[in-house]
């Protein structure tokens, strides 16, 4: 089990801020594939991969990053702080 958290419009499209996911995905991208296959709202949220950023255990990673040992994966749009 892995904690998956969502922010900004990714959170709004999926409709929840956090959930626990049972997954065999070995990379962040595979996890996106699994989630997108679940329901339309996930597919919609992840439809533009170029607009998706991810963090594994609170560290920014590329989408091809491995998931081994990860406890929390976060998905969100490009950041707009400052």
């Amino acid at each position, binding site marked *: 089990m892995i904690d998956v*958290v969502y922010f900004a419009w990714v959170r709004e499209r999926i409709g929840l801020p956090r959930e626990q996911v049972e997954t065999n995905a070995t990379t962040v991208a595979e996890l996106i594939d699994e989630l997108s296959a679940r329901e339309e709202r996930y597919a919609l949220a992840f439809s533009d991969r170029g607009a998706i950023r991810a963090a594994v255990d609170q560290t920014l990673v590329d989408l091809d990053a491995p998931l081994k040992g990860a406890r929390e994966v976060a998905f969100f749009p490009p*950041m707009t702080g400052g």
Partner: protein
Amino acid sequence: MTVRVQEGDFDLATELADFGRGAGGIVTFTGIVRNNDAGNLQYMEIEHYPAMTQRAIEAIANEARSRWDLCDLLIIHRHGRLAPGARIMMVATASTHRADAFAAAEFLMDYLKSRAPFWKKEVTSDSAEWVAARETDEKALDRW
């Protein structure tokens, strides 16, 4: 070095009272919520990723300290609802060399824009839209 993420406002004078002793120059940047072109912004809602934010900003701050000769460094970033005219965030850098203080402050701003987990939503009298990241913000990182 000070890094703070908070909902409440901050005061430049208070923050700088003990900042950068022994430095020859202090640079500050203060970001302020601007109204939109239509002039109907009610507030900016700033969401962040609490478990990650402090750590991400500290990593950016440490990178700045490793690149420039800084006596002191301060970063404050707010979240929550911010009305037009409100302060969003500030950075301050102190150095014996003014070029270092300027470069570090610009570096911090460029990285906070695109690498710290904040997202802005613009709420007007008739819409609520997430602010899109600008390509120029991402490109700004290339110069460092």
